[in-house]
C-alpha cells in the first residue's frame, strides 16, 4: 500500500520552523507539504524561540495557526529554567489554541528527569495536553528518561520525537514497553527500528513525522512506504493517531 494513495490526507507530527523569520520558513514548509500530500502539520517553534524567546515564539505559533487554520497546528514552548514564567507562558499558549508542549532538552539545557520540568508537566496534565520531546541526545534526552516521565505522569500522552535517533535505537522498544502513554514519532530513525516498534507495541502508538527541515518528507514517506504496512496500520500511523493525540482535524 502506497502512502501516496493518501494524497492530501497525511498528518505530519514533526515539522519545525527553521528560524523566527516566518516569511522565509513558512512558504517553504507549505510548499513541502503540498508536494508530498501532507494535509496538515503539527509545528514546533524555531530554536531561538525554544531556548530563549518563548513568549514571542508562542505568539508566532498562535499567529500561524490562525492564518493557516486547519493546515498548521502549533506546539507551545517554554524553557523550564524560567520557572513560574515558563508555566505562565504555556498556560497562555494553550489558552490561545496551541495543542501541546514541545521540549528540546539539548537546546533548553536540562535533563528530562530534572525536577525543573515537573511544573510544566503538571500544567500539561491540568490542561490535558500531550508532550513532544526530541530524543536521541545522550545524558539529557534518552528514550528511557522520557519513559520515566511517562510513568510519573500516566495521564499525559508523551511523544518520543525522532525515535531516539541515532544511537539510542536499542532503547526504543524497551522504553515504549515501560509506558503505554508513550508514543513514537518516526522521523530520522531507520525503518527497522520503526517497524520493529510497530510489531511489538502496535501501529496505534506510532506517529508519522517528517522532521522537516532536519529531514524531509521525501525521505520519511518513502521510509514508511517500504515497511509494507497494512491499510489499517498505515492509516493509523500516517493520520489517525495524530488526529486523536493532538485533538485536531484537517
Amino acid at each position, binding site marked *: 500500500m502506497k502512502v501516496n494513495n493518501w494524497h492530501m490526507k497525511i498528518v505530519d507530527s514533526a515539522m519545525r520552523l527553521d528560524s523566527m523569520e516566518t516569511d522565509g520558513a513558512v512558504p517553504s514548509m507549505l510548499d513541502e507539504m503540498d508536494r508530498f500530500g501532507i494535509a496538515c502539520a503539527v509545528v514546533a517553534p524555531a530554536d531561538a524561540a525554544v531556548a530563549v524567546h518563548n513568549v514571542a515564539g508562542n505568539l508566532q505559533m498562535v499567529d500561524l495557526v490562525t492564518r493557516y487554520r486547519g493546515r498548521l497546528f502549533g506546539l507551545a514552548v517554554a524553557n523550564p529554567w524560567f520557572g513560574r514564567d515558563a508555566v505562565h507562558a504555556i498556560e497562555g499558549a494553550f489558552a490561545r489554541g496551541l495543542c501541546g508542549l514541545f521540549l528540546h532538552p539539548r537546546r533548553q539545557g536540562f535533563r528530562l528527569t530534572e525536577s525543573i520540568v515537573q511544573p510544566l508537566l503538571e500544567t500539561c496534565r491540568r490542561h490535558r495536553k500531550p508532550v513532544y520531546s526530541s530524543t536521541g541526545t545522550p545524558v539529557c534526552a534518552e528514550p528511557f528518561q522520557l519513559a520515566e516521565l511517562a510513568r510519573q505522569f500516566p495521564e499525559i500522552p508523551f511523544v518520543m520525537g525522532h525515535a531516539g535517533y541515532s544511537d539510542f535505537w536499542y532503547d526504543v522498544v524497551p522504553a515504549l514497553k515501560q509506558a503505554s502513554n508513550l508514543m513514537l514519532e518516526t522521523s530520522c530513525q531507520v*525503518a527497522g527500528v520503526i517497524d520493529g516498534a510497530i510489531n511489538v507495541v502496535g501501529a496505534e502508538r506510532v506517529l508519522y513525522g517528517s522532521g522537516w527541515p532536519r529531514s524531509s518528507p521525501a*525521505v520519511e514517506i518513502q521510509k514508511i512506504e517500504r515497511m509494507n504496512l497494512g491499510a489499517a496500520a498505515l492509516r493509523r500511523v500516517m493520520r489517525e493517531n495524530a488526529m486523536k493525540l493532538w485533538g485536531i482535524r484537517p
Partner: protein
Amino acid sequence: MNLIDAHTHLPGRSFGGKPRPIADLRREFANAGLCGAWIFTTDGLVMEAEKNNNILAEAVRGDRDFFEPFGTVNPHAGEDAAIRELERMRFELGMRGLKLHPWLQGFSLTHPSVKPILQRAGEMGLPVLFHDGTPPYSHPLQIAAVAEQVPSTMVILGHAGLDEAYEDAILACRRHPNLFLCLCGPSCGPLAEIVRRCPVDRLLFGSDGGFGSRVIETAIAKFHAAGLSQKTLQTIGCENPRRLVPKQPRRTDPPAQTHQHET
C-alpha cells in the same frame, strides 16, 4: 549514478543478526544502485577480531571486483599484537582499510596503542574509518585530535558526527586535511550543510548497508532530498572513494606480497 558505498557491514551473529551469503548482499547492493562497497566486519567489532577478519576476507574472496574489505584490530590487544594483526590483514588477507569502533570496542582515542596503529595503517596506505557521533569515546573532535597527530594517515569519520555532532565534524574536516567525512547517518538537513561547508573532495557516500536493503534506499533518498548536484554526487559517491581505495586489477586470491614489499 554509480555509487560506491563507503560504509557497509557483513552481517554476523551480533546484535541479534544472522550471517548472509555474500551473493545475496551483492545482489541487494547492486539492486539498490551501488557499483561497489567498502565492507566491514560486524562481529569482529565486538569479539575475535582476527577470526572475523578471516571470515570477512573469505566471504568476499570471489567478489573483490565489488567489495573492498576493511579489517579491524582491537587496541586493547596492545600495540605489538594490534600492529601484527594490522599487517597480517593487509598483506595476507588483502584488506583495503581499517575499521575501528571505539564505542563497541571499548577504547578511548587516548589509548596508547591508537596512535601507533594509525601511524602504521598510514604507512601501509590503509585509510582508517571510525565509527563516530556517540560519546564518550567516538566524538568527532576526539578522533580529529588523533588524526592531527598522524597527518599521513587518511582518517574517516564514518558517520560525519551523526545528527547530534555533525557541526563538530564539519569543524574537524575543515581543519585537518587528512580527515574525511562519510555521510552515513546525518539527516538530509545536516547533510546539505556538511556538503555546503566542507571540501567536497573529502566527503564520501555511506549507508550502513548490510542491515537490510532499506537503509541503502534511505541513504540515497537523503542525498537526493538534500538537493545535491549530479557533479557533487559523482564526486562524493564515486571519485572520492576511488581515490582513497583505488580499484585493483581483478584477482581471485588476495595479494601474496610480504610487508617488506609494501613499506
